[in-house]
Every structure is written in C-alpha cells, then in structure tokens.
C-alpha cells in the first residue's frame, strides 16, 4: 500500500452552465520516500490532483487515500489537522507571510498545532533547517528582502518544519530562473534522501522532471504515463524534454 493512493478520481468544475472535467478517472499510488513529479502541460490536471492529495480540494468521485486513510469523509477540522501533521506545502508564489522574518516564517506551522515542542529543541530544529537551505545569514530578513530562490528555500524549510510524511510542491520552480530552479529541486532531492520525506511536485519543466525518480505524466485529465526510474525499461527511461512535458 502506498502512502498516497488515488482510485478512479474524477474532478468536475462548474463553469457557468456547463461542467468542465479537469480529472477524468485517475488512479496511481505513491510510495513512502518517493521523489515524484507530476508532469504535463497546462490544463492537464496537475494542480487539481495536487490539491486533492493536499486535502485542500475534494474529488467529485473516486477515492484519495493518505497513509491508508480514505479522506473524503473527513470533517474540516480533521482535514486541517491532517494537513498540519501529515502534509507540507511549497507554493509556486512562495506564499510566505510578509510580516514575519525567515526564522518566524519557518516556525509558523509549529505554532498552529496543539503539540508543543521544547523551545531549545524547536530552535535547534529550525536552525538546522535554515542551515540546510543555506539561509543562516538571512534568518532575520523579511521575505521582501530575499530573492525568489531564497524565498522558495524558506518555503521548503517551512514545509518540512512539522516533519510531514509528504511535501507537496506546486510548480516550485515556475517563478525562478532555470539555474535557481534546478538548485531548488536539488535541495528537495537532498532532503528527500536525508529525511526520507516523500516529495510530490508538479512541473512542466523537462529538466526538473528528469531529476524525479517517479513520474506521473498527465494529459487532458488522464494519466498517460506512470513510470519509475529503472523499474520498467520501457517506461522508466525518460524521453527527451519534449516528451517529458507532453508538449
């Protein structure tokens, strides 16, 4: 059983008087410790699937299981607790809290839950994360004093601070230049190896996709490829950039 499982998931959005099917029966499983890329062109359904895995959107039909638990029947409070304890988020626009500095932004998720951590333990953990993402010199700075890459590093540290099983990253490199984007993905990969945290990120950048060891490729709301590096020679050997993005 995977840490994330999607079973025949559909998602339909009302658009005026018509309904638009964003996801049309998607099924796949993600194992613990995976570094997985959900790839596909715009409108393929990447963000919709990521939202459903992140429990911030609900499927129209089908099942989304997180850590073996079916999530469709959970209340708002349970979903909130689940998001806090099990999931971490990295957003395309970083979404840092503008009035808090780097250290405070990273600390913020720890202040939301009911579990309290010893102050010294918390400080040690946050400082380690800051060091890991290379922002020791910047920890007292506000987000508007940082570059895009630095902001995304803060977002990654913030996503990891609650020690979640899964980190979801929606197009984490979209607002970054390619070199910085690659650095960010390398950072995520490094943490994936060190902490065994499952990383699920959406992208349409072929270079970024190539770093993943599990790819789910979407087109028009359907999975057109679900492959692991080295698992299946016919699928695991990734095609070039063009085919990777599906474009």
């Amino acid at each position, binding site marked *: 059983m995977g840490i994330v499982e999607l079973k025949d998931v559909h998602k339909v959005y009302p658009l005026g008087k018509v309904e638009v099917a964003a996801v049309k029966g998607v099924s796949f499983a993600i194992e613990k410790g995976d570094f997985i890329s959900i790839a596909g062109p715009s409108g393929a359904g990447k963000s919709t699937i990521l*939202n459903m895995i992140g429990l911030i959107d609900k499927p129209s039909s089908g099942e989304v299981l997180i850590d073996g638990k079916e999530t469709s029947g959970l209340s*708002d409070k349970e979903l909130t607790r689940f998001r806090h304890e099990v999931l971490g*988020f990295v957003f395309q626009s970083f979404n840092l809290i503008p009035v808090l500095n780097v250290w405070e932004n990273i600390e913020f*998720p720890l202040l939301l839950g009911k579990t309290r951590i010893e102050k010294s333990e918390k400080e040690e953990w946050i400082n380690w994360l800051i060091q890991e993402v290379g922002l020791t010199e910047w920890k007292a700075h506000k987000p508007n004093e940082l570059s895009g890459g630095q902001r995304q590093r803060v977002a990654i540290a913030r996503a990891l601070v609650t020690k979640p099983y899964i980190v979801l990253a929606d197009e984490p490199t979209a607002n970054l230049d390619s070199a910085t984007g690659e650095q960010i993905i390398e950072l995520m990969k490094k943490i994936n190896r060190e902490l065994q945290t499952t990383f699920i990120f959406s992208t349409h950048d072929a270079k970024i996709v190539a770093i993943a060891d599990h790819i789910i490729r979407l087109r028009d709301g359907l999975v057109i490829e679900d492959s692991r590096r080295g698992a299946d020679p016919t699928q695991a050997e990734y095609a070039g950039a063009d085919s990777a993005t599906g474009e």
Partner: protein
Amino acid sequence: MPVTLKIAFRNIKEHKSKSLIVGILLAVGAFVVVLGNSFIDASKSGIRSSFTDNYTGDVFVSGISEDGDVSLFGVMSPGGMASTPTIPDYEKTLAMITSSPSVAKATGMATGYAIVTKEANEETSQDSSGILSQADVKAASRQSVTESTPENSQSQPTPGAKEDKKDIREKISPNMRFLFLFGIDASNYWDVFNAVELTAGSRLQPGQVGIIIYDKFLDMISKSIGRPLKVGDTIVIQGMSSMGFKLREVPIVGTYRQRGEGTMPEQLAFIDINTLRVMAGMTVGASETIKLSEENTNMLSTENPDDLFGGDLLATSSTTTGFDESKIQAQLADKSASIKANEADTGAWQYIVIRTKQPSDSKRVIKELNEYFGKEKIAAVAGDWQKAAGPYGQSVDVLRIVFTVAVAILFIVAIIIIMNTFVISVVERTGEIGTMRAMGADKSFVRKLFAAESLTLSLVFSSAGALLATLVVLVIRLLRIPAGNMFFEVLFGGKYLSPFVTPVNFLGTILAMSLVGFLAHLYPLSIALKIEPVKAMQSE
C-alpha cells in the same frame, strides 16, 4: 507573544494607510465621546450639587398626583394648574424616615409662588389683560429659577440673555417681583440646609410668621414697590393656588446671602409654613366637601343650557320662596366657610427632604422607602434629586440622550467605514489566509488573528483619542474659560468651563470604541472564514 498578536501588530504597522484610516476614526470617536461626556458629567455634577445642597437633599419624598410627576416646582402637568398633593400620614412617614440608620436628617416643606404687591388694599401690579393665571406666574418664576441655577445669579448675563429676561418680565408686568417660596419647618430646616447666611434679622423660629428674603433681591423689591424695605417691615404678597388668590401681609424677619455665590435663585424666599399653606391652598376648607341640594345638583348637571332659564325653575323659585332678605343676610353673616378657607391645615406637608449619612446611601434609602410606601399603602413616592429638580434635573438626561444618539450615529458611520477598510484588507490577504489554512490553521486561528488586529487597533487609537480628550479637558480647566451666559453656566455646571473626565467615562469610552472595532471586523471576518485553503494555490 502569541503569533496572532505578533502578526496583528506587524500588519498594523505594515499597512499604515489602512491602519491610520481606521485608527483616526476610532481616535476621533473616543475623543468626541470623552470630551462630550466630560462636559455632561460636569453639568450633571454642578446641577446635582446645587440642588442637593440647596433644595432637595439626597432623597426627596412627595405625594402622588395623577396629573403628572411631582417635583419641588409642583406637579408637572399640562398647563401647570394641578395642585401639589400633600404627603398622607406625614407624622408616621417622617418617623419611619428618621428611624432609618442611613438617614442623617429630614425635614418637611412645601413650595409655592407669589408676587410682591405694593399694598394690601391697592391694585396689584398686573398687565392690561387683568388677572394673571397661576401658570403665568409659575412660568415666570421657573424662568427666574433657571436663570439663577445652579451657580452665579450674580454674574453679568450676555446682552441676549438680558433681553430674554426683560422680554418675559415686561410681557407679564413691568414692576412685578416674583417670589419662589419655601415653606419650611423652622424647627429643623436649618439643620438640613446650610446654604444661606443671614445678613440681617434672625432665622424663622417655630410658630413665627415671617419671611426671609435674599438681601439683594429685597433692594429690587424696594425699587419695584417704591419704598425702602428692611427687616421688621411688612410686605404684601399675593399667592395663587387652586383655591384662588390669597393676599397676605408678612413681616420680613431676616435677609440672607448665599454661602456659595450664585448657587440659588435670587427669588428664593423662606416663609413660615402656615402662611405658605394658606397661599398654596393647603387649608382646612380645602379638604371639606361642599354639599349641594338636590335642586342645585340637578341644575348644574343639566346638559341643555336652556334648562337653566326654563320656566319651571323661575316659576318655582318665585312662587314658592320669593326674596327672603333675612335669609340672605344670615348666609352672608356666616363666615365659617371663609374662615376654614383661610385656616392652614397644620398637618399638610408637600415634601420631605432627606439628608443621608453618605450620599451613596441615597439609592438604598429610596428603595427602602418606596417598598415601605407600597407595603403600607401610603400614596407617597421617594426619589433622588433629579425627581425633585423636575425639568431641570431631566434636562441633563435629555442632553445626554441627544448626545448619545449623536454618538450612536457616529459609531454606525465609523463601523461602516472601518468594516469596508477591513474588507479590502481581507481581500488583499486572501492568499495569505489561504496559505495559513493550507498549512493547518483552523478557523479559530483566523478568528483570533482578525480579532487581535481589530482590538489592537481599537485599543491603541481609542486610548490615544481618550488621552487627547483628557489633555484638552485639563487645558480647558487651566484656561478658566468663562461660560459666557446663563445657558452655558447651567450646561457646564459653573461660572467657568470645568469639564472633568471620570474613570468610567475614560475606560467606558475605550471599551465602547473597542466594541466598535470588534463589531466592524465581524463581517470581514466572515469573508475571511470562507476563504478555502485552495486559494493559497491560486494566489500570485
């Protein structure tokens, strides 16, 4: 510091323009409320001390009238013609009052109005229309009381105020001097009230007939009637009541001046209770029932005026009785009814004024007395100085109500503006709120965050507004700005603008403005709570 407060403080600082819009509104609101209440409190305090020290004591007991509320100025009835009721079972009631451990002193009294006339056998000073109505006299006397209350009847009124006074006096009579009479229990009145100091003569003694007049007003009366007056002389006064007009010649036993300058109306005169009773219609005859014959009753009860001149009446009258001169003479010689109408009802008192041991005891004493009156079925009622002061006491409340309504409108406008500003802020922070929700912040966290922000803004700026108002009040007191005219003297409770800020005013205003801020954030909060975590993904 909780993260909600930390974010709230920093958001306020970060969004300076929005914070200033909201903050200035709250500060102005707090400033206006504190300043306004400081004047109203000063006014109430001035009027209160003037009345409790000089006229009403701490607790005021009166009879009950169906025509309106009873105050020191009589029954507040339409037209002002209703007679003031007396207190039933006076002795028993007074004994009960004085036995209360919270009561220091109590005395009975009655009030009335009178005009000083030239001589008893001369025409009184009246205008061309003839006899003055009781209501006219009351109105003129009340105006005189207002002009001199609570402080400083000595001060120079503004030309406008002077004209107003002249107008009404000229309208009624050019040479008329009104007196507002306090019929006192000479045995203990001076123990309860010590606001006047004798300048000549002596205090009224129990059983003594006489009047004590304000010394400066005596000079005015002297000028009006054209002869100098001093202690030992007599003056003729004309009183009005439901029993008709009464003329009395009373000796001047003393003159007084006020201990606190301007604390009493110059027209106030202290008179022996029996003379007051006769002039106010509190006589033995007043309580007697006149019995009419059946024939007279039928005649008076007829609904058709023509019946009064009908043949039967005249025919019966002329044929059966005729004109009997001896009978008429006998009737005229019988003066018993007249004597009774001029004989004071010595047990009649309109009011009991009470001095409590502590002013704070008054509420409890009022409650106890009203319970006692209810239990014993005594038609009397106890109240505070405001009840006794009648329209003058109510004027402060009316002023406060008008001010409160104005402030309520200000609050509503402020709430709408603050609400709109908060709504803009929520819309701008949709992504931020969505992010927090996505990371595991529940709705209560969002509630706390917004409440902290609105309450911080409200507390900081309303405190600033209240502090500024307090400073302005202090400056006004230091500047000793003259009230200018009688209206403002009454309004501001003294000769100078002397507003003061009470802790209730200061803290209550901050709390009220915080409530305004809190109410204003509820609608924007409801919008914020509807923000789904998925919005975090959509923010740019």
